[in-house]
C-alpha cells in the first residue's frame, strides 16, 4: 500500500469516531482514503501527500505550462525544499530592485550575511519605493528575480541560509 497499512487505517477510523470528527481524507498519488464521521458535511482534516494539485484542471495546466504572459516565477520547486534555506517572499506586488538607485551597489549579494530587519531590496509600487527587510538572520544563498523584474505577492525574492 502506498501510504498506510491496514492497522493504520483502522487506527484512523477509531480516531475519527472517538474524536467525533467530520471526516478525514488522505490523498497521495494513486491512493486515497476518506473516513467520514457521524456528522457528514465538510472535511475537517485533509492531508495531501504531494505538492501538486491533483486533478485540479486549470491548476495543473498553469503549473506545468505557464501561459506566455504568465508572471509565475519559473523557480524549480526543489530549491525551496533544500534544508536550512529560508525563503523571503514579496509582501507586495511591484517591481523588484536590488539597489536604491541605478548607480548604487546592490543592497545584498549572494554570500553576504544579513541580519533580521536589514533592508535587502526595494519593491516599487505606485511610484513608491518599498524597502523590503529580511525577516531572518543568515547568509544570502540565492536571489530569485532579476533586477527590474515585476514580482507578484508571495513571489520568492531571496533564499537565506540560516544554518
Amino acid at each position, binding site marked *: 500500500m502506498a501510504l498506510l497499512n491496514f492497522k493504520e487505517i483502522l487506527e484512523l477510523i477509531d480516531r475519527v469516531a472517538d474524536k467525533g470528527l467530520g471526516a478525514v481524507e488522505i490523498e497521495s498519488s494513486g491512493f486515497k482514503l476518506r473516513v467520514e464521521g457521524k456528522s457528514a458535511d465538510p472535511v475537517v482534516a485533509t492531508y495531501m501527500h504531494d505538492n501538486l494539485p491533483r486533478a485540479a484542471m*486549470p491548476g495543473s495546466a498553469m503549473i506545468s505550462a505557464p*501561459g506566455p504572459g504568465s508572471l509565475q516565477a519559473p523557480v524549480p520547486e526543489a530549491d525551496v525544499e533544500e534544508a536550512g534555506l529560508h525563503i523571503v517572499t514579496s509582501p507586495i*506586488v511591484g517591481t523588484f530592485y536590488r539597489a536604491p538607485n541605478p548607480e548604487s551597489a546592490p543592497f545584498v549579494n549572494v554570500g553576504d550575511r544579513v541580519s533580521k530587519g536589514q533592508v535587502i531590496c526595494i519593491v516599487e*509600487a*505606485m511610484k513608491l519605493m518599498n524597502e523590503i527587510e529580511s525577516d531572518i538572520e543568515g547568509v544570502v544563498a540565492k536571489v530569485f528575480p532579476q533586477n527590474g523584474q515585476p514580482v*507578484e*505577492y508571495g513571489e520568492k525574492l531571496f533564499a537565506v541560509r540560516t544554518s
Partner: protein
Amino acid sequence: MFSKILIANRGEIALRVILACRELGIKTVAVHSEADRNALHVRYADEDVCIGPATSKQSYLNISSIIAAAEITGADAVHPGYGFLAENDHFAEILEECGIRFVGPAAEAIRLMGNKSRARETAKAAGVPIIPGSDGPVEDVDTAEGVAREIGFPVILKASAGGGGRGMRICWDEKDLRTAYDTARHEAERAFGVADVYIEKYLTNPRHIEFQVFGDTQGRIVHLGERECSIQRRHQKLMEESPSPMMTPELRERMGAAAVKVCEAVGYYNAGTIEFLVDGPNFYFMEMNTRIQVEHPVTEEVTGLDLVREQILVAAGEKLSFPKKLEMSGHAIEFRVNAEDPVTFAPNPGRITTFHQPGGPGVRVDTAAYSDYVIPPHYDSMIAKLIVKAPSRRDAIERGRRALDMFTIEGIKTTIPLQRRILGDPRFLRGELSTRFMEDLLK
C-alpha cells in the same frame, strides 16, 4: 481602443470580462488571491498576478496591489466587475491619476450616486420620487430614532456605501432600532470600509424593479428597460427577469424617464442601474448601482446587446452602439446558483464532484465552476448564473424548469431545489411578486 485590460475581480464576472475582451482583441490580466490560483479567470487571462492572501481585504480589495499589478503588466484600463472595488470612487480616482482608465463611470458620479444617501438627495433634487427617510447618514442612534418617529415605523437602516444586503436592518419599533443601529454600522464598516448608515420608511410589500441605464461620454444616456428583482432572500436576489410581469408600457415610460433624469443630473456615463421600489401605483427611487450588475444577462437576452463589450467601448470614448429606441423581444429569467443549503441557506463551500450544465436553445450559463473545482470559503457563494430566454414568460418558465432539472451539480448543495420550487409556485406563475415573496413561500 485599449490594448490590455486588468480585471480587478474573480469568478464568473472576471470570465465574463475576459470573453468580452477576447472578442474585441484586447489582452487581459487576471489578478488573484492565493486561494484562487486554480481559478478559471487565471487560466483564461493572458497574464496573471497574485495580489495577496485569501482575505478579500488583502487581495481583491487591496487598491495599491491592484494598481501595482496594472503598472507592472502595462494595462491601460481596469474593469472592476461587480462587488469588491466596483463602487469605490477612491479606486476610480487613483486609477485615472495613474493614467489607467477605469471601465465605469467618473469617480465623481460614483461618489454622488454610489453613496446611497447622497443619491437619494440627487434623485429628490431631480424631481424623482424617493422613499421618505433621513437626509443623508444619521449621526447617532438618537437622530435615527427621531427620523423613524417622524416617518413612522417600520423603517430600514441601510449602509450609505452599500449594496447586496450588507449593513441593512429592518426595524419594527424603537427597540429594534436601538439594537440594529450598531450592528448595521459594524456590518457596513466590515463590508465597505465605511460605517455610515441612513434610514428610510420600510415598505412591507413592494416590488423591486430596476432599470438598466447606459451612457456614453458624449452625453447620451438611455435606459434598456427593467428587470424584476423582487425574489430575494435576506435582501439577496435569487432570480431576476425581464420584462417584469407587472409592467405596462406607460409605467415603463414613466419609470425609464425618471431613471434617465437621475443619470442626467450627474452627467452619468457607462453602465448603471436605477433601483426602484414599486408600491401599488407609486414608484420610488431607492438607489443607484454605478457598475455592471450580476443580473445584466437578462437585459442582454431581451435586447441582444453585449453590455460588457459596450462598457469597454464607452470607456474607450466611443459612442453608444445602439439606437435610442431599442427593439426588445422575448422574456428572460436568470437563476443565481449559489453554493448554499437550499433549506438553511448556510453557505456550502467545498469540492464540486460533478458539474454538467444544460444546453439547447435559449439557455445560457455563465460560470467559473467545473468538475473538481473547490469553492473557496472566502468569497461570495454564487457559483453559476443560469439564464433562459423564450418568446413568452410562460415558455421561459418551462425552459427554466427543464434547464434547472438538467443542471447537475454534485458534491455541494445549491439553491437549485429552491428555484425549482419557486417555478412551481402559483403566485410566481401568475406574476404576483413582491419582496415578501420568499418569506411567504417559506412560511
